[in-house]
């Protein structure tokens, strides 16, 4: 490792440690990045990646450790100072101010508008409105703005923390291209992602963190994935195989969900599909094709403006999520900030649905609750070191809590909106079988994912939504990325299901 800490290093951190109360997030982390280099920072959920990034950029103060910028000892006391010394981060959670406009957010960080505009363009967001309020924009757009803002301030070192986790495939490609170009122009990039395809497409080197300690620093080359995973997890696991899926039964009888010509103005115009008990139906769509609205309608957050929805053969229109839940439809949203009680414990978060109905306002069944919660935690391998308050969990573990809630309650129909967003590779491999297991127990699962490779791993078939309409229905056996991608871009021949 010593050979990399030469004078060329833009940033060189070593021996960094940080504890939050009893939780030791980092014990001995080190990392260096040179000009023109993209370094992947890898590690399982809770390994300390985000904490490391926050320390490097002054958002947190380390307990110990040394940071050199261009060979000079540096004390980065705040994000403002980090920016001044050329370290510009994109954090895992959006850092744009919700009640300000895009333009005001730029002014706040002294970001020049023209390069920002150019980057936004490059990154594939059309018709940028500088006067739009941040909170009115979809998450994916915000991620892009966050990145474009960072790029526009002309950083020496760019730190991207799971920048792509909430992005659909098309945008990811653009991000990779732009980031690569930036590195080629001489910046250093620290890149955090749980997706190996991105790492191998973009990065030059991978630094691996395990339990807050740097355990490896390897060049990206053919077949390095296995090695990285082994370092990350301290054990071997198998990648990329459909984890012993039981095949779905024949789709006969009344469907659990029968959706016909469903519309929710303005984006969702005409979606139809059947979802049968015992099956996992994938939903594939590029950013903003109406999939958010579809899930909102199914989960009771908004009413459809057209079409019909039948649950077990009876027509339904939900006015409140409670109605949907009463009919067995449970929803895991894409944005965990919407699903979690940040200041409450893991246990309370998971047990939340138990108390929802008036008749459950009385004494809690504590034994029952404890068992169910423990079961969910074990199934999802939630890291409970910081379980007193969910906000202290790492991003991936927070995500697991949102799913765990419904595992504890028991589900008939699970609506999963990008559930593996920001989840590490091992856990992903645990989630697919879990979803299959639910299906095997005659639950029905609707599974939107922004990672196309997941479709054949978890689903029986997939519907593709383009421009608010179902444009294709593809069986899992044919659902390779190419096919799905073509369909998602509206290039498929097949008509709606």
């Amino acid at each position, binding site marked *: 490792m010593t050979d990399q800490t030469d004078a060329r290093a833009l940033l060189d951190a070593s021996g960094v440690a*940080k*504890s*939050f*109360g*009893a939780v030791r997030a980092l014990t001995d982390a080190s990392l260096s990045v040179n000009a023109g280099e993209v370094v992947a920072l890898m590690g399982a959920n809770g390994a300390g990646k985000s904490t490391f990034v926050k320390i490097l950029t*002054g*958002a*947190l*103060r380390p*307990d110990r450790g040394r940071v050199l910028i261009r060979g000079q000892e540096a004390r980065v*006391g*705040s994000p403002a100072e980090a920016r001044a010394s050329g370290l510009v981060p994109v954090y895992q959670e959006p850092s744009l101010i919700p009640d300000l406009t895009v333009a005001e957010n730029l002014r706040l960080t002294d970001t020049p508008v023209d390069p920002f505009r150019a980057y936004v363009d490059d990154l594939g967001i059309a018709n940028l409105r500088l006067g739009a309020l941040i909170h009115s924009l979809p998450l994916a757009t915000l991620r892009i703005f966050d990145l474009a803002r960072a790029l526009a301030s002309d950083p020496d070192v760019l730190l991207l923390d799971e920048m792509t986790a909430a992005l659909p495939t098309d945008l990811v490609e653009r991000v990779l291209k732009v980031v690569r170009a930036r590195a080629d122009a001489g910046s250093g990039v620290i890149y955090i992602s749980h997706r190996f395809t991105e790492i191998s497409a973009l990065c030059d080197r991978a630094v691996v963190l395990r339990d807050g300690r740097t355990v490896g620093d390897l060049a990206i080359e053919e077949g390095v994935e296995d090695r990285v995973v082994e370092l990350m997890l301290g054990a071997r696991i198998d990648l990329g195989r459909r984890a012993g899926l039981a095949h779905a039964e024949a789709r006969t009888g009344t469907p659990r969900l029968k959706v016909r010509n469903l519309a929710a103005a303005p984006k969702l115009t005409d979606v139809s599909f059947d979802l049968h008990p015992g099956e996992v139906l994938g939903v594939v769509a590029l950013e903003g094709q109406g999939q958010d609205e579809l899930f909102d309608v199914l*989960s009771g957050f908004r009413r459809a403006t057209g079409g019909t929805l039948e649950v077990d053969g009876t027509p339904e229109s939900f006015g*409140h*999520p*409670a109605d949907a*839940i*009463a009919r067995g439809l449970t*929803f895991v*949203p894409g944005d965990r*900030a*919407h*699903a*979690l*009680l*940040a*200041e*409450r414990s893991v246990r*309370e*978060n998971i*047990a*939340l*649905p*138990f*108390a*929802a*109905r*008036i008749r*459950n*306002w*009385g*004494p*809690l069944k*504590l034994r029952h609750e404890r068992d169910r919660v423990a079961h969910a935690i074990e199934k999802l391998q939630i890291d409970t070191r910081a379980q007193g308050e969910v906000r202290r969990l790492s991003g991936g573990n927070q995500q697991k809590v949102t799913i765990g*809630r419904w595992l504890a309650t028991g589900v008939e129909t699970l609506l999963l909106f990008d559930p593996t967003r920001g989840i590490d590779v091992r856990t992903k491999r645990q989630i697919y079988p879990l979803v299959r297991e639910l299906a095997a127990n005659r639950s029905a699962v609707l599974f939107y994912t922004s990672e196309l490779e997941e479709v054949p791993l978890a689903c029986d078939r997939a519907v593709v939504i383009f421009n608010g309409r179902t444009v294709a229905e593809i069986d899992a056996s044919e659902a390779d990325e190419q096919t799905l991608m073509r369909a998602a871009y509206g290039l498929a021949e097949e008509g709606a299901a």
Partner: protein
Amino acid sequence: MSSAPDTQDHTPPLVRVGRFLGDNPMIPLLVLLAALIGVLEIMRPGIVSPFWAGNTIKFAIPLAMLAACQMLTMLTAGIDLSAAVVATVAGFVVATVSPLHGDGAGIAVALLAAAAVGLVNGFGVGVARVHPLIMTLGTGLIATGCLQVYQRLVIATGSDIPDMLEWLGTGRTAGLPNGLFLFVPFAAIILLGLRFTGFGRLLFALGSNEHAAKLSGTRSWQVYIALYLLSALIAGITGLLYVGMIRAPSLSLANPLLLPSVAAAVIGGTSIFGGRGSYAGAIVGALILTVLGTLLTLLQMPEGARRILFGAIILAVTALYVRFTESR
């Protein structure tokens, strides 16, 4: 509120003590209470006696009960600024209805009036989505107006406080105020209810993230209506106790308790932004404020200096508490 960079302590024993206190936030509060009592005893040797303790507890009880209104509503990021007025209304109504229609009717009418305010609050907050601060400020004004109109009708009836309430408010058993017969079960219900009932869970959930609660099937308006109704009933019962204690049904009976009740809740570690709080803390907060009141009453200094000291001590107490309990 937690954006400033960390300033981590490097001395391990201190960290460990801090962590311990952080996990047991009641301990620093109790230590502070004990310290105040110590100062009082040093200032006026001999004052700390069973008689004094009885008095202090007696006056802390209504404050702690109103603090329950604040704490419960604050859990959902709300507040109940009508609580003190509701207590006053209940106290005044019971004292003026009882002589005409009997004690039972008096108490029933008083609590009905309180419940009416609570229902309106709950409707405003839960259904019409008015900010609780404005809603309860408004209903507080409305209730005050109604009380004034009502008192014009009953000037001639005179007032009489039900014996039971006087017994509860002024009597002592084994040196301790009888108010404890009301307060101990009440506190137990609140403490246990918050921890071990579904309703308690929902209060924390709504304050922490209403969207998440909705997602999990909670119809929040139901919770809000129940919550503000509960808060108003607690305030009403407090009013009954208080009028028995002061034995003078004035039109502003419990109003001065409003700010202290908020203070007691927040000193006790309740977050006004919701999702965090404990009733045990609020009870100790009420005791701290009561002892502090005594301390300042007995200090012979200009009134201005007294108030400055009062504010400074509250600030110091909470600052220390925040220091101890913030595990960073």
